């Protein structure tokens, strides 16, 4: 029987890790990811899991060590945030290219500077092209679920691509709420055992990992990586369906909230979507046909699903918790691009919110809807919610 625990998002993720029971975890603490590592280290110290924990001296070494470990053939996890992810950056790409199914919770935090420890999505966007699967979670429950889902997905042979599970710093990671934890055996059976294809430690079949790959084959290997992501896209509905069977919770590429007849649609990821749902409810009470689309999956980007969800709506307001300096905001540009093929293109607006943990209130989230209702959206004007203008 699943148990409901009132715990933080960090603890929820640590519980998922405990149940996934990785062979190796190599990690370095960074606010606000630290409690994940701390909880897991306590599980190790108490003998609740027999995972080998490598308390490395930096995130760079964390990602390097998990590459070594996963290449060796071990189920391997780490976790990080913001500047830690930035320090890993080079090896984040290498992990994906080496097709190692590492699972890494990212507790989203602003990338400096000036230094800030609070939540935004600049870290996740910074690695959007690194070749990792990127899943997002609105709350602790979803962070827990996505960690388990990511493991199953990443290790599928046709996928073999590492996966990040994003949860908002502090808001999700440090907030306490009720989370339904599945039985250990149920999770263990769900994720099963990973059978690595090219384990380094298979000394009877010595192989070479990470060769020099010049102009004659590098291109082909990257084409294969693209195939891995395409396969992840194909596999996701299946993995979601399997997860629904054990948990009763239904996931998809997109969380569609009150979308059946929605005319004014907000697109937003992670915890702000939760507050936005409240705002949608408020607007619905007033008879306004508001709706919300929350991508659970960012990479592989569900372009087709976005198109289907948004084609023919009156207005689409995309909210990004990061800026892309000198360019349109990341989620906005992708959503806009997806709508190129729309039969009836909606009005569009782009809003940046919540940078560096700036609080996101219902009042703020009403603004894009109001703009849309007044017909005042401008697809070329980036607007800011809660900015001291």
């Amino acid at each position, binding site marked *: 029987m699943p148990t409901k625990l009132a715990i933080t998002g960090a603890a929820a993720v640590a519980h998922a890790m405990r149940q996934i029971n990785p062979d190796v975890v190599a990690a370095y603490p960074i606010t606000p990811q630290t409690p994940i590592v701390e909880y897991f280290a306590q599980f190790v110290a108490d003998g609740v899991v027999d995972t080998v924990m490598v308390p490395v001296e930096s995130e760079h070494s964390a990602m390097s060590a998990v590459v070594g470990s996963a290449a060796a053939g071990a189920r391997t996890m780490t976790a990080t945030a913001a500047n830690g992810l930035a320090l890993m950056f080079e090896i984040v790409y290498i992990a994906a290219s080496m097709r190692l199914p590492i699972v890494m919770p990212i507790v989203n935090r602003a990338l400096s500077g000036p230094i800030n420890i609070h939540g935004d999505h600049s870290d996740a966007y910074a690695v959007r092209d690194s070749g990792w699967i990127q899943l997002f979670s609105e709350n602790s429950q979803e962070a827990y679920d996505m960690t388990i889902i990511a493991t199953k997905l990443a290790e599928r042979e046709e996928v073999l691509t590492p996966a990040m599970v994003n949860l908002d710093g502090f808001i999700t990671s440090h907030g306490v709420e009720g989370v339904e934890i599945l039985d250990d055996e149920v999770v263990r059976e769900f994720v099963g055992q990973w059978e690595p294809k090219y384990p380094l430690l298979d000394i009877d079949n010595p192989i*070479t990992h990470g*060769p020099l790959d010049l102009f004659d084959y590098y291109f*082909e290997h990257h084409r294969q990586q693209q195939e891995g992501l395409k396969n992840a896209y194909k596999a996701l509905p299946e993995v979601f369906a399997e997860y629904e069977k054990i948990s009763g919770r239904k996931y998809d590429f997109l969380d569609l909230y009150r979308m059946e007849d929605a005319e004014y649609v907000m697109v937003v990821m992670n915890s702000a979507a939760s507050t936005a749902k409240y705002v949608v409810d408020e607007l619905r009470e007033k008879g306004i046909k508001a709706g919300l689309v929350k991508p659970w999956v960012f990479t592989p980007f569900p372009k087709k699903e976005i198109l289907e969800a948004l084609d023919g709506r009156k207005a689409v307001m995309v909210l990004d918790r990061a800026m892309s300096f000198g360019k349109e905001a990341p989620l906005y540009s992708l959503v806009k691009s997806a709508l190129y093929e729309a039969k009836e293109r909606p009005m569009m607006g782009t809003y940046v919110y919540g940078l560096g943990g700036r609080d996101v209130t219902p009042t703020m989230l009403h603004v894009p809807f109001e703009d849309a209702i007044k017909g005042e959206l401008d697809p070329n004007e980036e607007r800011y919610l809660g900015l001291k203008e």
Partner: protein
Amino acid sequence: MPKYDSWKEMPIAGVIDKPATAREYNTGTWRIMRPIVDKDACINCMQCWLYCPDMAINGKVKEDGKTEMLGFDYNYCKGCGTCAEVCPVNAITMKPETEFLK
């Protein structure tokens, strides 16, 4: 060594799924000086075997327990001359490859 014509055929991740495939690449073509051993002078001390950076010298331990230098593998010998340099009895000489063009 397979030559891959399509990304679909290749092992993923850039993995080279077989060991020692470099043997199919003959570094002997790089050579401009060729080591020649005078087996009468050679004392089979195997210093050349030990030092050769290209594993291009063959050797064995005979039944009587003595070691024997078995000559060069010109498929791989790059002609660096380290063997000649370390030979304690000067049994190896380096000769220009041009002398062997016939």
